[in-house]
């Protein structure tokens, strides 16, 4: 079982996440046509509130949230008990993983799921000591991806004819 991060520590770590979500939402909304600007703001606000009010340990929350259902059922990824307890990275990694899950909520549904599933797949195979850096790299490129995915999603929805899954 992974150790939980203490409450104060989590509060401190939440601030940059909220900042990231808010700035990301604003940036995406600026890039979208006027009729779509409400969407990233609505999603960003919901995500920021969700992060702001959360008081549970990250691991517990990730388990209860079910990581959007299907993927978590596989019992894989970082939620697996005892995966990196030996090197003491579990709490930090779990917290970053939690951030990754929340960042995926800023993406359109299908591409966001795929991004998270792929991250989970890769992170479950990567050695524990490299996992923190890998998650950081996912988080660094997340804003670029959010913008890219929403731009594509908007183009897809604006296109006439039958809709295809993204």
């Amino acid at each position, binding site marked *: 079982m992974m150790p939980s991060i203490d409450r104060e520590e989590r509060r401190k770590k939440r601030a940059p996440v909220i900042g990231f979500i808010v700035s990301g939402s604003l940036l995406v909304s600026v890039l979208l046509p006027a009729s779509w600007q409400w969407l990233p703001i609505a999603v960003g606000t919901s995500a920021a509130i969700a992060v702001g009010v959360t008081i549970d340990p990250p691991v517990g929350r990730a388990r209860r949230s079910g990581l959007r259902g299907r993927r978590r059922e596989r019992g*894989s990824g970082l939620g697996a008990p005892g995966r990196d307890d030996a090197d003491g990275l579990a709490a930090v990694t779990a917290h970053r993983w939690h951030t990754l899950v929340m960042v995926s909520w800023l993406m359109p549904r299908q591409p966001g799921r795929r991004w998270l599933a792929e991250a989970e797949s890769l992170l479950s195979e990567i050695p524990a000591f490299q996992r923190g850096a*890998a998650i950081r790299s996912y988080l660094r*490129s997340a804003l670029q991806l959010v913008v890219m995915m929403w731009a594509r999603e908007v183009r897809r929805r604006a296109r006439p004819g039958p809709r295809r899954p993204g």
Partner: protein
Amino acid sequence: MAPRLTVQVQLILQALLRDPAKEMYGLELSEETGLQPGTAYPILLRLEHEGWVSSRWEDIDPRAEKRPARRYYRLTAGGAVQASAALSGARRPKGTALRRLAEGGGTA
């Protein structure tokens, strides 16, 4: 429209071109190129949007294999031709740039 050939994009294309018929998954590509997985993902996604690369989920039973399914990438027939042409016209990444990427993981 062809993707912008940054050093990172070239590294990914070179890795995929080594054996265009072979499928590679994220970690494999990451180890091959020295790029961090988070850096490689947007590049692969962009290449997929451009039709240069196709991808699929591995068809396994995760419980039996005790790991999640991998996402495999490979160059499409057209992508392989376009990638070869683009790489032959592109400036080759310098050794120092490659070393820096291998050490730091690089950014897209």
